[in-house]
C-alpha cells in the first residue's frame, strides 16, 4: 500500500510542481511512511493520516523545501518537521488530534518560510530536540520569543558576565571562526576549516548565552551603529575602558560586538567561544 501511495503522491507532485524531485520524495517518504504506518496502522483513520502526511511531504519536496545543507542540518523548520519529526512524533499524538497536528505543523513550517532566513534556521535548530507534537504551536512560540524580543542598547557600564562555550559539545571537529550577527540576539558562527559548516549562537544576559547547534548559514549580517571601543589582550578584553578577564584566550581569531551589550571572540588555537554580556 505504501508503494502505491508513494507513486500516487509522486504523480501528484509532478502535476503540481515544475521542480518536483521524485527521487528525493521517495528517499524521504519511503522510510518515513513505513515508520508512521507501523506505529499508527491500528488507529482509526490511519490511512487518511498517512495519505495526508505524504501529500504534505510531496508539497514540501515540490516547493524545494525538504532540504538539508551540506552539513546535514535541515534548511528550514518545514524540512525538519516533515522529513524527521512528524513520522516519529505523530504516533504519540492522540489519533483524533493527528490531522490537526499535521495541519498545524504544515502551517507553522510554511509560515516561517515567509520570514527572514535566520529565523527559520534558528527555529529548526531549536526545535530539533522537541519531544512531542502536542501543543507544538506553543512550543514554537516559546522558542522564538527570546529571539524576537526587543533588546535595549547597552550602556556598557557593567558589570559584565563571561561565558565560555565549547563548540566541541555540539560538533567534535568544529573550529569557530568568522561570526556575523543574524538578528539582535542570534549569531552565526562559521567553521574555520569547513566552509559550509556553521553553528547558531543565541545571546542572552547573565551568562545564559547558548549554542543552537548546526545550522545552514543564518544569512543576514546585521550592521549596528555606535559600538564601544573593544580591545583584546592576552586573557582579557577592555570594553569602554573597563578590563574584563577572559580565561584561556590568547589571541582572538575573530570578534563581534553588538549594540545590546555582547562581545564575542573566537581563538585561533581553540574550539571555545568567549561571550561577554554587559546589559
Amino acid at each position, binding site marked *: 500500500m505504501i508503494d502505491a501511495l508513494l507513486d500516487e503522491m509522486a504523480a501528484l507532485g509532478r502535476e503540481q510542481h515544475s521542480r518536483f524531485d521524485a527521487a528525493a520524495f521517495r528517499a524521504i517518504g519511503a522510510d518515513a511512511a513505513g515508520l508512521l504506518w507501523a506505529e499508527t496502522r491500528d488507529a482509526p483513520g490511519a490511512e487518511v493520516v498517512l495519505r495526508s502526511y505524504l501529500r*504534505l511531504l510531496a508539497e514540501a519536496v515540490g516547493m524545494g523545501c525538504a532540504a538539508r545543507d551540506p552539513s546535514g542540518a535541515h534548511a528550514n523548520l518545514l524540512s525538519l518537521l516533515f522529513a524527521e519529526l512528524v513520522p516519529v512524533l505523530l504516533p504519540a499524538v492522540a489519533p483524533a488530534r493527528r490531522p490537526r497536528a499535521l*495541519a498545524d505543523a504544515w502551517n507553522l513550517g510554511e509560515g516561517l518560510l515567509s520570514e527572514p532566513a535566520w529565523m527559520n534556521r534558528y527555529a529548526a535548530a531549536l526545535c530539533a530536540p522537541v519531544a512531542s507534537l502536542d501543543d507544538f504551536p506553543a512550543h514554537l*512560540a516559546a*522558542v*522564538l*520569543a527570546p529571539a524576537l524580543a526587543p533588546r535595549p542598547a547597552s550602556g556598557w557600564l557593567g558589570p559584565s558576565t563571561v561565558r565560555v562555550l565549547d563548540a566541541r559539545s555540539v560538533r567534535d571537529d568544529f573550529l569557530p571562526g568568522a561570526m556575523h550577527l543574524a538578528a539582535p540576539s542570534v549569531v552565526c558562527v562559521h567553521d574555520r576549516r569547513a566552509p559550509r559548516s556553521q553553528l547558531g549562537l543565541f545571546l542572552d544576559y547573565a551568562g545564559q548565552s547558548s549554542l543552537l547547534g548546526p545550522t545552514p548559514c543564518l544569512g543576514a549580517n546585521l550592521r549596528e551603529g555606535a559600538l564601544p571601543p573593544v580591545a583584546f589582550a592576552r586573557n582579557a578584553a577592555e570594553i569602554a575602558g573597563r578590563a574584563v578577564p577572559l580565561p584561556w584566550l590568547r589571541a582572538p581569531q575573530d570578534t563581534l560586538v553588538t549594540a545590546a551589550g555582547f562581545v564575542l571572540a573566537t581563538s585561533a588555537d581553540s574550539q571555545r567561544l568567549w561571550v561577554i554580556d554587559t546589559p
Partner: protein
Amino acid sequence: MSLAQEKCARWLQGRATVAPDGSVHLAAREGGELRHKLARAYDWITTHALVTPFEDVAFGHAQQLGRAAHAVPVHASRAWSSFVLLPLLTLVTGQRLLIIGGPGRGKTSVAMLMAQLAGYPSAEVRRSVQRGHPQLTVSDLLGSALPSDLLKATHGEPVRVAWRRWLGLRVKVIDEYNRIPTKTQSALLSLMAEGCAEAFEQVVEVGPSSWYLTANDDLGGGTFEVIEALRDRIDAVVRCPPYSGRMLDALADRVGDARPAADTLPRDIVLSLAEIERAGEAVRAVPIPADVLDALGFFAGQLDFCTRASARLEFKNKDTLHIAGRRVAHVCNEDCPLDKQENLCAQTEGGVSARAYQSLLLLAKGLAWFRGEPAVSLEDVRALLPWTLHDKLRINPQSAFFQKSEHQVYLTDRVSWILQMFDRALAQRAAYARVREPVERSRRALVDLALLDEAQLEKHADELRAMIAKLVDQGEVNAPVHADLLVLKGLHGRCQRALGERREAGR
C-alpha cells in the same frame, strides 16, 4: 501576546485545513514573486518540453576560449535560450512575437505552451490556434453573421455576428501567418494594431493580448507576401534552434510517454490572467536609465543616416533616397567620403520605426525584471536588439563592409550582424564622448529657457552657432556628428524663438 505568539497565531491560519473526514487539505498557493514563477516555467520548458542546449542570451564578461576564428565565448553568469525566453517575455508584456524556423522545430509547440501557461486547457489551446492557409477567409478568422439574422435583416445594423472564440483569449496563436491571403491579413492587421475587429458594422474588442505568429520562412517562403504594415506590427522575431543530436534521450522519453509534454504542465508555473497583468505592471515600472537611452539613440541615429541623400541636414536620411526611388547602394560608393568599415550607415538599407524601439524598450524592461535587476541595462538592450530588429532592419549587401571576407558571414547571420553593429556603435560612442560632451552640456543648460534673460539667450545662441561651425569644419559629417548638429540646430532655434518672444513682449 508576544511577537512570537502573534506570528505563530497568524501562521496557523495558513492553507492547510482539516476536512470533516480527517484528511488535511492544502489550498492553492498564492503570492510569491511572479518572476520566480516565470523562471520556473523557463526551466521546466527547457528540461521537459522543448529541450535545447542552445543558450544564446548571455550576460556578463565573456571569456573567449580557443583559436580566434573559432573562439567559444563562455560567460560566468546564467545564460538563456532566446527561443524560450522571448516567448515568456512576450507573454508578460503583451507583445507580438514571430517564431520562425523549419518544420518540426517546435514553433507551434512553444506558442501553444505559452497559451497553456496562461491557464488555457490544452484542448482549448489546440482549438484556438488559427492555422494559416490560402483559403482562410475573413469570416474564418473573425466570425460570421448569424444566418437567422441575415435572412431577416433589411440593413446591416441588426445582424448579430458570432465572433470566433479565440478572439477573446489573452494568448493568440496564428500558425503559418505567411500562408494567409492578403485580404485576411488586413483583418489580422486591424486585430493586432488596433485591438479590434469589424464585421457587419459591428466591432469586437479583443483586449490586451500576447500574440504568437509562426512562419517556416519569413523572408519570402510563404504562400503570400506579408503586408508591410502587418510585419511592422510584430514586435520581435525569434528563431527555433535546430534539434541537438545530444538530446535524443529526451525524445526517447517522450516516445515512451503517451501524453505530450505540454499536457503535463505543472500547476505551479501556470499564471492566472491577473498574475499576467500584475507581471506586466511590474515590468512597465522598471526604469530605463538615461545612459541606456543615450547609447541606444546613438546606435539608432546611425542606421537611418545617409550623407549623400541630401545636402540639407534634415534630409540626410535613407527615406529621402527611397522616396526618390533610389537605394543606398546607388550612393554608398567611393564618392561618399565616409569610411564604409567604420560608419554603420553603410551597412543598412534603412532605419527602423519608432515602434520597433518602443517594443525593444518594453522587452528590455521585461528582461531586466525577469533577471531581477533594478533597472534596464545596456546588456538587456543588447540581448534583445537582434530579435526586435531582426525583420525590420534591411541589410545593404552591396556595402563595401561586406566585401571583406571576415564580414561576409553577417550576410547570412542577422543576429551576429546586428550585434556587431551595436558593439561598434558603443565603441564609437565611447570614442566620441569628448566631442559630444559640449553638446550635452548645452542641452542640459538650455532645458528651461524661461530662466534666461535676453543677454544670456544671445550668448547661448552665439555659442551654438560657433559649435555648429566648428563641428562642420573640423572633420567629416558622419552620423554621430549629424545627430549632434541636429541637436545644436534645434537648440539654436529654441533660443531664437525665445529671443523673439522676449523682444515681442518688450515692445
